């Protein structure tokens, strides 16, 4: 990695990742799905997800690799198209959650124990007191009919964890010498946060972003399964919902394709986020290692 400065965080992270085979396997899985999604975006794959190109519940064959569903739609096309939906939802929700969580978390941490912090902590407490999936489902239900209902519901629910972590980190950073120096020379608070504080929370944002990415995909599947998620399109959740009527009749195409791809993708994401966390926060890996070795 010549283009990474030898001592930079990115270089150190990459060095750590290289030595973690499970992390690399996870990265390979993510890249594979990213390639699938890219092909769908470019129109090379999945374009016929809505076409009823075959007969009802056809088995796997050269024309339909994973068979067809009740309407005669190609299950492979639908499963691949769903990879794009998963990426879109994961990315949009992860990015929006990170921005909102980082912004409000940094503000709370910078103004710790003041009025602004109290208000943000109260909001976090209220939102966290409601069971996670219940809140997402309730919001999605309440906003149904709005094109971005599912995204808004997820962002509204997921930002709290990021905000709490960032707040704690900012409270630590704001007492560092370099921040005190910046204050001493008269830099405004917002500028210190943006230029000197938030960049130093990037390791948290990166790890938290990957976790939100995973959660968003899982939440989408659950919401779509309940009929509250993707409304005009297809996703693994929609396919699983369809499969509930099919498996009792002995047709497993939708179920296997959606659950298989979801399983593989989430496994890859979890392996990668685990490895990333270990690479960015070596202390946490050592701590886990000690915990696992501790006598009962």
């Amino acid at each position, binding site marked *: 990695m010549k283009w990474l400065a030898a001592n930079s965080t990115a270089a150190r992270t990459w060095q750590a990742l290289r030595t973690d085979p499970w992390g690399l396997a996870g990265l390979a899985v993510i890249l594979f799905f990213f390639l699938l999604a890219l092909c769908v975006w470019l129109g090379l794959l999945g374009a016929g997800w809505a076409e*009823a190109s075959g007969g009802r519940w056809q088995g796997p064959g050269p024309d339909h690799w994973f068979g067809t569903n009740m309407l005669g739609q190609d299950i492979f096309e639908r499963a691949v198209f769903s990879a794009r939906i998963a990426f879109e939802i994961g990315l949009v929700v992860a990015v929006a959650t990170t921005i909102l969580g980082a912004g409000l978390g940094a503000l709370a941490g910078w103004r710790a124990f003041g009025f602004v912090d109290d208000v943000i902590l109260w909001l976090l407490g209220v939102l966290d007191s409601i069971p996670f999936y219940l809140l997402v489902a309730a919001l999605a239900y309440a906003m149904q*009919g709005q094109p971005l209902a599912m995204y808004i519901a997820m962002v509204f629910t997921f930002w709290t964890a990021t905000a709490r972590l960032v707040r704690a980190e900012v409270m630590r950073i704001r007492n560092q010498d370099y921040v005190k120096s910046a204050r001493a020379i008269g830099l405004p608070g917002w500028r210190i946060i943006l230029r000197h504080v938030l960049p130093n929370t990037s390791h948290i944002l990166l790890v938290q972003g990957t976790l939100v990415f995973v959660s968003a995909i899982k939440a989408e599947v659950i919401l779509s399964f309940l009929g509250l998620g993707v409304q005009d399109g297809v996703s693994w959740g929609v396919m699983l919902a369809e499969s509930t009527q099919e498996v009792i009749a002995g047709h497993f195409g939708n179920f296997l394709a959606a659950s298989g791809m979801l399983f593989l993708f989430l496994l890859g994401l979890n392996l990668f986020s685990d490895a990333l966390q270990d690479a960015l926060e070596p202390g946490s890996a050592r701590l886990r290692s000690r915990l696992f070795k501790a006598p009962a």
Partner: protein
Amino acid sequence: MLTFARVSRLLALALSLFLVSCAEESPAPAAKESRGSVYRHAMDGAPTNLDPTQADSIYANFFAVNLYDTLFRYKYLARPYALEPNLAEELPQVSADGLIYTIRIKPGVRFNDDPAFEGGRGRVVTAADFVYSIKRHFDPNVRSMGSWLWAGKIVGMEEWRENGADYAEEVPGLRALDERTIQIQLIQPFPQLAHTLTQGYAAIVPREAVDHYGAEFSLNPVGSGPYRLESFDSARAVLIRNGGFRKEPFSLAREGFNPEQQSGLGLEELEGLTPPFIKRVEVEFINEDAARWNALVAGEVDFIKAPVSQLDSLLSSRNPPTLKPEFAEQYQMDASLESGLVFTYFNMSNPEIGQHPDPEVDERNRALRCAIVKGFDWQRRNEVFYYGIGQVFPGIIPPVTPEYDATQSFDYVTRDVEEAKDLLVRNGWTEDNLPTLEYGMVSGVTDRQMFEQFRSFMADIGYPTDKIRPLTFASYGDYARAYQNREIMLITLSWTMDYPDAENTIQLFYGPNASPGSNNSNYDNEGFNQLYRSSATMQPSPLRTTMYNNMNRMVMEDCVAISGLSRTLVLLWNRDFTMKPDRSFVGGSYFRFVQAPGDPDD
């Protein structure tokens, strides 16, 4: 970090789950052990309210007609449906002008014992109870769901409501002449009146119970029907035989037995026995198809409506539907056309697709609607969603009605993609100027699949797929509110008939019934309206049938709806039971005739 061993264990677990899910399911022997005279009935939905004024669903209607008495019911076995006196002594006497109905009720019929009555003993049902029960529908405090059945039809009823709904005040058109005689005076002839008196809405309730239980009356039914309620919650209801129910021996001839079609059901054994036969009915509310099916296979219930997704493994042939031998050993089956239809309305008040004051635009819109109708593939819809055993028919008069014309042309429901494309081209419709269609639906798998299928049909006639969008609603209530507010362009509905007369579906297109009334297409054709007004007061006759068929043709010529199909409902029950079940509004009172194995008339 995950270790290899942990990942291996995870994969092994996933594989085990997969293998378990793939295990082949076969029908387990149904529970054969004796469990007394108990019939366990699975319903695919549940009522939320047992007050007859709220009996607006098949599920609520089932309870109303079994817990309460209605003046009339339909014969158990006769098809087409035929009226039979229930609490009434005989069918109504109707005056020559069709305006006055006189009905005598049976003597000595008592309400079930209940604390609501003095001394806890049920009293005799009188004509005044019927008058009270119908008046309740017009009491604004009751918020009846069924008042529409008689609104604007009974002399003085509207005035009674406007004057404050005082039950002590007499309604001139609804009177108890004596203890047992009811007289109904109509504003204009209403030939379907006797049919409306079979419904759960027309169930007879005692005023004492309504006063005693107040708001709780909806959960504490007190009637004189063949059963009384033992318990009721969101998962199940238990009905117990009303031991004091009137003794009327079962007669095959009176119930319309047809030996050619019904000889294999063992119904002949019931002749002379006294219903209700079953001592205890346990109704399980099971929404999920898979759960309902599994409950039957495991012997946990005795009756289900078979899920369409299961028909492939259940039937050995479709025409006629026949059970595979392994299922026929354990179950009886009834595959009958529903009393209703499924169809899709165009919202005719929408200027982009409906009627338009500018004749040129109006004609173009008509051509667009007709192109969509011609592009719709009813055979495929039937094949995919109804296992190919539904009956496709042209227009709005379902095959189950006596007015249905089986000889009419089927062009309206025969797909012709080229003609559809030609219609669009000839009327200047192009991909650019076609309107964006908003297809309303309730969030759910089947509705979504129907939408996707509709969109693929339209793609075949050149309609851009990005111009056909779903308009999704979280619940049926939200959906209904939207189409009643005329906010949806395409409204897909199923209609279950309230009575077996084609008037019940034709009124869905009568201009004055426009939304928020029952005409959700908002179709308004003066010629149609005139015919409807004329035929609505006529007794059944060849002339009335001709008028109905003319209205049917008008709806098709104007392409007001993509219609229609009547579903074949496959009902399955444990063959130890002797019965002919019926899942429609008009057939809900059959519980009393269900006979359990080895259950003599005791």
